[in-house]
């Protein structure tokens, strides 16, 4: 066990955990932030995506010890009221089916648009291909990303 101070959604949070514990479980079990989802635990599905210094990463394979000093943003911190353009677009297009993958999809898409406000189709596909949606919402995710690009203008 070890103590860590993490910077999550702009707040300092203290945890006392196994240094190997992936950030995903620190968020969910230690900090009771359940927005970040567990899908595979092996960086294969994207359900656990959060931002680390603005880049989309899979929190299920990132030991908490590796996140010290970094700025972590989770779905809860993207915007609390759903006003972020990606969240807005997701609601407008009515993307979610079961909804379980959507926090990860939104975090991946929002990191992409923050770094590349006008990605072309290939650039979007290259990034979004890392996020599985078992319900098959891909066509709507595509529409929602286009809409988010418009809304961010």
């Amino acid at each position, binding site marked *: 066990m070890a103590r860590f101070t993490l910077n999550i959604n702009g707040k300092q949070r203290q945890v006392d955990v196994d240094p190997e514990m992936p950030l995903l479980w620190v968020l969910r079990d230690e900090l009771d932030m359940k927005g970040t989802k567990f899908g595979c635990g092996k960086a294969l*599905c994207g359900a656990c995506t959060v931002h680390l210094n603005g880049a989309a990463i899979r929190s299920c394979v990132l030991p908490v010890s590796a996140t010290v000093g970094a700025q972590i943003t989770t779905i809860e911190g993207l915007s609390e009221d759903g006003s972020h353009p990606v969240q807005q677009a997701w609601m407008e297009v009515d993307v979610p089916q079961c909804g*379980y993958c959507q926090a990860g999809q939104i975090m991946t898409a929002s990191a992409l648009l923050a770094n590349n406000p006008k990605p072309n189709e290939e650039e979007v596909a290259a990034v*979004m291909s890392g996020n599985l949606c078992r319900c098959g919402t891909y066509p709507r995710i595509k529409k929602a990303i286009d809409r988010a690009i418009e809304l961010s203008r």
Partner: protein
Amino acid sequence: MTTHINRRKFIRVSGLSSAGLLLAFHLPGKNTQESVAEEVELNAYLKISTDGHIQIVAKNPEIGQGVKTSLPMIIAEELEVDWDQIEVVQAGADSRLGAQFAGGSMSVKTNWDALRNAGATAKAMLIQAAANEWKVSNADCYASAGVVYRKGKKKGKPYGDLVVAAAKLEVPKDVPLKAPADYKILGKSIPGVDNLALVTGKPLFGLDARPSGALIAVLQRSPVFGGVVESFDATAALQVPGVVEVVEVKASASKMQNRSSVAVLAKNTWSAMKGRSLLQVKWKVEEGQEESNRRIRSELDKLTNQKGEIELRNDGNVEEAFANAPTVLEATYEVPFLYHATLEPQNYFADVKEDSIYLSGSTQVPGGIPGLASRITGIPVDKITLDQNRNGGGFGRRLTADYAVEAIVLSQQLKQPVQVVWTREDDIHHDFYRPAGMYKFKGALDENGKLRAWHLRSATTSRYLYRGSTESPHTTEVFPDGFPAGFVPNFKMEYSPVATTVPTGAWRAPGHNATCFIDQSFLDELAHAADKDPVKFRLELLGNEDKTMPYADHGGPNYSTKRLRRVIEEAADWGGWWAPPTRFRHRGFAAHFMFGAYVAQVVEIQLDEKNWPIVKHVYAVVDCGILINKSGALAQLEGGIIDGLSAALYGGVKIREGRTKQDNFDTYPLLRYQEAPRIDIQILKSTERPEGLGEMTLPLISAALCNAIFAATGERIRSLPLKDNELYRKSS
């Protein structure tokens, strides 16, 4: 949708007849002078408070099929309120609401009458209350947007002002229902009621629901199906910080409940997983150590080469027809075991106390779990509370409550609240897979290319046999009344079940996900052999006469050839079927009736340099009766196509040495973003009773896809998934 933030406290007071009068008092903030509002339950499906707030109950589990939105829409329509006037609340297990489950695409169709009546009855009572107050006949009053008006008068009374009086009235019977032409909510696109909560990361799912203080349990089950714990060593596991206890869980008598296992209980999920990885368990395995796809395949092959165990249909005389026919076609089709892969792994929470139980977690059968818990613990059902949460997918996996039993048993054993969490590996290793099957066809055409005989010998690892059901093992595996049965003068269908230790269960569109592939592929083969256009061939078979065909399976008791013909014709026209193919675009077609709905699809593919199909565009035409939620319906139909495509391209569980050889999404791939085709769907206008749509487009896509591959390459795909098909194994 309004969000009502007032905290409420309920006091149940005696109601009149079945309309319980449920009073609630707002708990005003300490220093405010807020007035007290009463909340009245006019029936089990809705509550109206005297301040005008309206709550409508979502009775069934939300697994992504949209019922948390669509079912309340039906009530709201008849209640005559605007959608933004209401709040949807998820029901817990509540026997007054009838069966609570998600399966067979039945939520809408089986609740249609009850939900309309719930809304219409409440509306009638509110109108009656107003009429009484105004001393006029109720025929002189009407409701609109949550207000009752007297004809000719501008000012009316809102429901909130009428509800206390309404609750004292006798519940009327046979209230009039709205005509579809007057619908204001049904047929519109209403976004999912949880969308805001979902995009802001609220804890909506089973896995999110762990109350603090609960232990997390991660279980080691036998890698070989049916294995039993012989002994275990937990020394290393217990040394992991956070691990609290390691206990054995005995298998239940039913194969559909929990398996023999060792549970590691910890204060957090990571510790439980780590502890589990350090367990040493010795397993005793009595049978099935050698079970494999190869063994099962040879058994399926053997059984489909001989007379079937069950003869399901025998019209005319197929043997004679084959002997005399100028053209006879034979073909063997195969489908693999499929994994459900709900993105949220299985999980369940149970808090078994001395004389009460609290339950929550992801399941498609919330209505059945209190009974299950009662049988296990002896605690009566009325002392058991169950809350429903969203499910991160279902697809049939969560019709089986094996993992819920694990939580109940562990909580009882440890006298502590326990949340059972499955890892992805657990989930793929211990699924109840879609049965594997083999299908041998023989078809005969006459001189004019007319279909004279159809003979199907099928065998599958029947899920009804697996679960030890008393029903025939062919149930949901093959459908003796499915098209083209009844249209071919000589028609025979036989079936044999194969016993295996590999667990099987319902997988989205059970049975149809295999039979539509084989039937619609073989019809395509016959059409080509007859030198006829595949769509024309189907239409010719159906004939021009409008017939009602008997259909004894789910979705029956019959189906209409008129409606089937219509989706076929519309899809062909709309999907550009009649235009000649281009060098880059090849088309495939399929049509199917299931669960009461009619679907036809045109698929357009392009081949890459290895002849692998890139699916460019899918057109689907659907007749599902009255449409409830347009956006939700389209989402289901799109999702079904993608799900079916994913299974056709990549699905397939590898069984060797009595166990599943894949562990995660690297070895069990699913379709990804860039592979999703463009999808266009047309839902035909209808005033027929609504049918579900969660499963209806799925079965067609594999057939339409493989028919398109044939059109493009002349190669016939008869075995799925595509990635393991000889055609692609050779070329890669």
